[in-house]
Structures are given as C-alpha cells and as structure tokens.
C-alpha cells in the first residue's frame, strides 16, 4: 500500500484531534468533539495497519480487539466517582507502552546496525527507516529514544502511585523517603549520566538503568505530593504521557505521533497551570513534589463544633430563600449526588433559589464535581464557578457544605501560617447560616484544622452525606 495514503490519513486524523480538543469549549459541542476524536483515532490506526504497520496485522487487530473489550468493559462498569482512579490507571498504560516502544526501537537499531549494507537494502518498515539514517541522525535518535523511555517510565510509576492514592490504596499524605529532594535530584543526575553513556556506547545496560531511575523518580515524586494536589498531578501525568508519545514519535519518524503527543502534552501542561493558579500554588513546587514548608505554628482554633440534626436543617431550609450548596470529595465518596439532586429539585419546586458553588479544585479531578452533578441531572446553569458566586454569599440565607473541607477553609485568608494560606476559597462563612455535612470531626485531605466548623453561624450535620441527605429528604416535601 502506498505511504502517500497513510500520510494523507495522518493529516486528516491530526485535524480531527485538534477539532476534538477545541470542541470541548462548550457542553453541546463537546459531544460532537468526542466523535471527531474517535474517528481520528480509527483513521490513524487503520492507515497504519494497511501502511507501515502491515506486518502481522492480524495479530495487531486481535490484540486491539482484546484490549478494546477490556477497556469497554471497564469503562462501562466504573462508577462516576471512581473516574479519577481510572484516568490515572490508564495513564500508566500509556507510559508503559511508551517504554516498550522505546525499547523496541533500541533493539531494532541494534539489529540494523549489525547488518551489512546489502542486508540493509532488503529491510522493510521501521527497520528500513533506521537503515537509511546517517550517523548524526542515529545519535539524535538515541537521545529521542532515551527521552521517550525516561518520560514514559516516570509516567508509569507516577500514574500507578496516583491511582493508589486516589483509590485509597496508598496513604494520601505527602510522604518522602529520607533524603527528600536530594534523592530525586540524584536519580535525575544518574539518568543524565546514563544518557551520555548510552549515547556513546549504544548498549542496553545504560538504557535499563535509566529506566529504573525514571521509575524511581515517578514513584517518589508522586508520593511526595499531598492528596489535595491530586487534580494537578493527574493532569500533569496526562501531559507527561503526551510528551513521551511525542519523543517516541521523533525516534520513529512518525509525524502523527509527534503532533498528537505535543497536543496532549501542551494541553495537560496548561490544565495543570490553570489549576495551580486556582489554588494559588506555585506550578514548579507542585510538580517537584511538595506542599512547601510553612513558617510558624498554625493559628489556634477556638470555640467548639455545634451539631445539629436533620429537623433543624429542614427547618432552616424551609425558612431560607436563597441556598448555595458546596459539594466536595465527601459527596463523591458517599455517592450522595443523587440525593443532592433530589434535594435541589424539591427546594427549587418551592420557589427557592438553589445554586451550586464549585471550587476549581473540588474533588480529585478538575471539574470532578461538575461531572458528578451532571450525572445526577442537576442542570448545569445553576452550577457556578467560584468567581461567579463568591460575592453572593453575604446575601445567602443558607450555605450547605457537603463533604468539602479545604476549599471552604477560612484559614486560607485569615492565617498566614496555614499551609493553604493564600489559596482562594469559597467564602461560605459569610452566609447567614452554614451547615456542614461531614462524617466526623476529622480533618480534610490536606490534614488542616478548619476554623469554619467552629464559627458561630456554622452547624455540623454529622453522618454519612448520603444517609444525612436522605433523612433530610423525608422532612422536606
């Protein structure tokens, strides 16, 4: 089959991918955008199968079908609340695939280099491409390949750890091995040395050590990042997987891989940047792992937490005209979004103004709450961003905090020694009354005490968010 056709298909696929990302600017156009992505991917795979990747095509098709079946099954089965874990897990697959493809390129390179001129002429596919490279090009190829493997390996372990943290299988606290940043730096230096070694020798050993170092960096980097920063981590890993693909694309000389890898890489980077800005956190300090030490002791919290029962909440809601609901990760954990939606529906039917305030980093993924509320059929035009709604709290009768903690922590504004000082938060304590639905008296993901719970206009509505809301629903007609 002509390679010209493949190239044409690649161009079309690249355009489709760009449209697919750009289409996500609106809820309605996003639905169409996904189809662009799917068609683009199908076209790319098809063009490769009949073109440069036609060897053993049957095996390829079978493997894709098998993988696809598993992917389909998992995606169907997964709960919306488990989305963050799933995305992280999938990133690890991409990372690992990048490592393998990089290794393959290395082996091929070795094979081709060993051949004599005559044998080279007879090669096909990827090997043929390698055969025609000059020595400078081969050197560049080595760098690209090592880079692809390195980034892929970091993505792999990083994603696995991120998955573990999100799924609750690894402690979400920021932990570091003794040595901290020095270990990361050491591993990075060893990687660099290996790169030079590999560059001069071309052997497999330096590549292997490089990979191990990268695996360690990925592990240690993500272990050192606290749970509250997970949204940034996930989008950052997303970005890494894109760069890995781009690097591999360079070594394979495949433009589509380069284009798509660069698209994914830059989009993930921007997303991370946007989120860091929303949290008032330095982008660099987040990616390098660490909340940043704070000077001085945190402010003492005075007062006590006052509990309230469902009757009290129901009565206050009955009297209120305007209500703002602030959902957080706790709502996702308790699967309470359906109950929240039902509550919203009933309150709206009574002519009350009900709105949702979404903090940019609520939940464990950017836009996590939007997705959950959308799943529960909460209309998206009453779901507001922080900037849109923060000024409205003083005129609000009741603010209901459902399973969020750090994003409504007044310490961010009041206590300069707080680890989250300066992070923009939802100023729910300015509402006339605040109810906090919470499992117990524990602290939030970042492990910080929340003065909101001790404020005079705050009442604690203890219990599992879903059970609490269901009790509440029986009292509100």
């Amino acid at each position, binding site marked *: 089959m002509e390679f010209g056709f493949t190239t044409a298909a690649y161009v079309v696929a690249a355009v489709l991918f760009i449209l697919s990302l750009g289409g996500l600017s609106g809820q309605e156009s996003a639905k169409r955008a996904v189809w662009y992505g799917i068609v683009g991917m199908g076209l790319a795979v098809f063009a490769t199968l009949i073109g440069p990747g036609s060897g053993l095509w049957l095996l390829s098709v079978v493997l894709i079908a098998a993988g696809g079946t598993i992917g389909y099954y998992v995606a169907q089965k997964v709960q*919306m609340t488990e989305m963050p874990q799933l995305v992280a897990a999938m990133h690890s697959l991409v990372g690992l695939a990048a490592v393998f*493809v990089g290794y393959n390129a290395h082996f091929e390179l070795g094979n081709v280099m060993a051949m004599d001129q005559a044998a080279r002429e007879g*090669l096909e596919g990827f*090997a043929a491409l390698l055969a025609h490279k000059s020595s400078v090009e081969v050197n560049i190829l080595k760098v690209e390949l090592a880079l692809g493997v390195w980034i892929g390996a970091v993505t792999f372990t990083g994603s696995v750890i991120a998955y573990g943290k999100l799924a609750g299988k690894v402690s979400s606290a920021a932990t570091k091995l003794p040595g901290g940043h020095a270990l990361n730096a050491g591993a990075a230096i060893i990687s660099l040395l290996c790169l030079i070694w590999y560059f001069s020798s071309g052997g497999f050993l330096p590549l292997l050590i490089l990979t191990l170092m990268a695996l360690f960096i990925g592990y240690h980097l993500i272990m050192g990042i606290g749970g509250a920063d997970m949204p940034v981590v996930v989008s950052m890993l997303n970005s890494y997987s894109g760069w890995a693909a781009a690097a591999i694309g360079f070594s394979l000389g495949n433009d589509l891989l380069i284009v798509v890898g660069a698209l994914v890489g830059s989009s993930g980077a921007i997303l991370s940047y946007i989120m860091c800005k929303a949290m008032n956190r330095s982008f660099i300090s987040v990616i390098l792992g660490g909340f940043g030490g704070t000077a001085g002791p945190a402010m003492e919290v005075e007062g006590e937490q006052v509990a309230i029962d469902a009757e009290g909440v129901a009565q206050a809601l009955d009297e209120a005209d305007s209500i703002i609901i602030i959902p957080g990760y706790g709502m996702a954990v308790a699967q309470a979004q359906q109950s929240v939606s039902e509550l919203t529906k009933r309150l709206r039917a009574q002519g009350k103004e009900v709105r949702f305030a979404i903090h940019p980093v609520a939940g464990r993924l950017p836009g996590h709450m939007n997705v959950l509320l959308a799943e529960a059929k909460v209309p998206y035009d009453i779901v507001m961003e922080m900037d849109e709604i923060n000024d409205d709290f003083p005129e609000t009768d009741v603010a209901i905090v459902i399973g969020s903690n750090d994003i409504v922590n007044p310490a961010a504004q009041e206590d300069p020694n707080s680890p989250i000082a300066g992070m923009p938060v939802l100023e729910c304590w300015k509402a006339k009354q605040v109810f906090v639905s919470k499992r117990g008296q524990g602290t939030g993901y970042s492990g910080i005490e929340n003065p909101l719970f001790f404020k005079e206009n705050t009442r604690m509505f203890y219990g599992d968010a879903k059970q609490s809301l269901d009790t509440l629903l029986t009292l509100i007609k």
Partner: protein
Amino acid sequence: MKIGTPKEVFDGENRVAMTPDSAKQLQKLGYECAIESGAGVKAGFADADYEAAGVEIVKTAAALWKEADVIAKVRQPNETELKRLNKNKTLISFFNPGGNEEGLELAKSKGANVIAMEMVPRISRAQKMDALSSMANIAGYRAVIEAGNNFGRFFTGQITAAGKVPPAKVLVVGAGVAGLAAIGTSTSLGAITLAFDVRPEVAEQVESMGAEFVYLDFEEDTADGSSTGGYASVQSDEFREAQLAKFRELAPDVDIVITTALIPNREAPELWTKDMVDAMKPGSVIVDLAAEKGGNCKLTVPDEKIVTDNGVTIIGYTDFPSRMAAQASTLYATNIRHMMTDLTPEKDGQIVHDMEDDVIRGATVTHQGEITFPPPPPKVQAIAAQPKKEAPKELTPEEKRAAETAAFKAQTKQQVTLLAVGAALLLGVGLVAPASFMQHFIVFVLAVFVGFQVIWGVSHSLHTPLMAVTNAISSIIILGALMQIGSGSFLVILLAALSVFMAGINIFGGFLVTRRMLAMFQKS
C-alpha cells in the same frame, strides 16, 4: 449685642422666633435678649415665662426694632419692618429671596445684613439650623392629622363585634422631609401607606419608614438627587406621563392623598389632576402641602378647605407649622439659636459675619449694602454623590480607543518578544540538527502551539472530559507499536504486542468514559 424678637405681624401666624429656653442659650453666647410684649402668647409662652428666663419685655414693636442689634423673626418681614433696619442691624428670618426683590432692594438700601433661614445649605453641618426641614417635619405630621380630622374612618383596620373596618390607604407624593414625616405618622397610625418620589434613590428611605414605594415602569436616567443638593428637579414629559398614569391607576383605591412635591424656586408641579380627584371615593381627603406655591392639585384653594362635588375634601392650608405653634416655635427658635452659635465663634455676644463660611455665606442675602443672593454653590457637596456603579462604561470613546490601543500594543510587544525568542531558539537548533530532524521538529513546535491555542478556550466544567479525551488520544502511541510489531526478533514482537494491547484498552476505555461523562451534561 442685643437679640430682639418682635410679635409676628402676618395674619394667622402663631409662631415666635424665640422661646424662654432658646433665650437662655442665647444668653450663654453673651447676648442680651428682648421680646415684644405678647409675642409668644399664641405659641403658649407668656411674658412672665420670658421674664423668668431673663428676657427683657419691650412694649412696642417699634421700640424693639430700635433697641435690638439682631432681629430674629419667623415670617418674611413686611415693608414697615424692613424700613426699621439700618446698617448696624442684622435680620434673621424667612425671607423668600427668590420672590422678594423689593424686600432685597429695601434691605440693601438700608445697608442691613439679612440672613434668610430658607437659604441655609443642606449640608450635614448645617442641619441643626435647617429651619425648612424642621418646619417640613411638622407640616408632614400635621398634614396626616388634618387628613385624619377630615376623614370619616379609622386609619387602622379593625375587626370588631360591630363589624369589620378596612384600613385606610394613604398615598404620599414626594418623599422629602415633609413626605417622610407624613409616611411615619401615617404608618404609625396604622394606615397602609404608599409613597412616590421622582428620585428612585429615596425608595430605601421610604421602605425604612414602613411604607411601600410606588415604582414606575419607566427607564430613564433620572438625575441623581445629589446633584441638585438633595432636592427634586424638573422631569421630562415622558416621565411625567408615566407618573400621572400610575397615579390615575391608584386614585380610585386611595383614601388619603398627601402631596408634598415642590421644586425649589418654581411653581409646584401639577400631579393630582381633576380626573384623579373625580375618580376618588367620596369621603376621601387630599392634603396639598404645596398649596402656597400653587398646589400639586389644581383644585386646591390656598388656606382653605373645600369639598368637591363628589365629596372629596381638599385641604390647602399653608400654615401647618403655625397650627402647631408651640412645637414649631421651639424647633425654629433652636434653629435660630444654632445660627447664632455659628455667627458667634468667640461666644462674646459679638456677631462675626464670616462670608467665607459656606453656611453663613449661603444664607446671607444682603451684606453691607450689597445683595448677595443667589449665593455661589457651596464648597462642600450637599450629599455625597452615589458611587458610580458602571465607572468603566463612563469612558469616552477616545479614552476607550486609547486604552484598547495601549493593551493591543502591550500584547503585540509580548507576542513579538516571545516569537523572537522562539524563532531564535528554533534557528539555533536548525544550525546543528540535520534536515530530517528539523522537519519533524517544526511539526512538533507547531503542534505544541496549536495545543496552547486550543486549550485556553475549554470551559472549566469540561476539564475532566478534556482529560479523559486527551488520555484516550495519547494512546496514539499504538502507532509506534503497530509499526514495530511486524519486524525483528521475538522480543520486539512481544513488547510491541503488549504495547498494542495496552493502548487498545486505553483507546476504548478513554473514549467511552468521555462519552459517558458528556452525555450527562444537560440544561435545566
């Protein structure tokens, strides 16, 4: 110096400009006080009360005018009185300088200093001597009382054994001092009170007094009352029509109408037309506080109470404060006393007529043989202007264009710098790297650029779908594996096969999850 107060000569005027209490205070400022015999009788202050307060009783008006250096009185002085002035005398009184040119000329020719109490500017510092407000307050209160006196029913609604009584409905037009006083009185008597004013910013004050503000369905940039010193200004014809239409709608419903609409130095606007009067129920009452300036209702007869053919009582009295002479005199005398305090900074009984002082300058209409009316605008704004809510929109087109140009230039500068640095880097790479690499590298740079451009536009709530989609797309790595699977050794095939398998999971899983998420977004 001696302050003297003559008996008011105007027919039916009961007030007096000095009370025994105010006299005591004036004496503390170092003044001697004198009063014409019988001046306070109608307001309930006997000569003996004054004497007890240390005030000299003077038998005749002529003697008082001669003796006193400062004359304080209530009503605008007549010709006889003005002729008694000379250049050593100061007169403090209502003067109506806008409509009293002869009086001004006469006072000027006599060389006397005249302070007109109605000219006291409406600034915070001068409120204690603002006689218009203190009199208006009384007028507003009295207007409701007069209305109640002529209204055959209760103000409050009651349910009694003898039947149900509906509450009275009162409409107050003009929410100035008099209007607000009327609103307060009316609501405390239990009536349902509606109020209207051309200045929408007073709605809050009206509501704070317990009345309901009547809004017009009318869009116009009504002048902020603060620009006219807190008084209402003339309205456009369209606005007037909308206003009258609203009143016409209300007329059959209301039992009592109290109009207080006055525009400074103009005839009172007609707000309650004959057809509105005709539409009112028999027994209804209209109190026209603007009667002196022609009335807000053209049927009003000044100083009289009339009953129309359909049984509506229209009260046009102009002397409401005088009808409550004791209260009015106390307040007015206090206003005068405060004015004297300002005029006597040393408290030594000597007037210092400081023409640099905003309040004194504003109130002085003749000074040392000159007419000083009208005064220049006060240096201090009467009422703080309302904060401009849409300040950015106030920019003139030129300013806007300038700002845009500046922003555009800054943006251009930033972009050019970035491009220059980027191009330099690219060229640097191009110098050392082989052509085949550059080919791919340019594609890479362009793709990164496109990615940056595209992602900024993605809406916040779609960040999770974006991540899922990019995750799915990043499994494009499958292409690499596909290309390798067909060639080389067993190890290569194995690794490539594994890669294809994993990427396959990712492609299907990623896209499916994205679709699931997006399918949920829906509008209400």
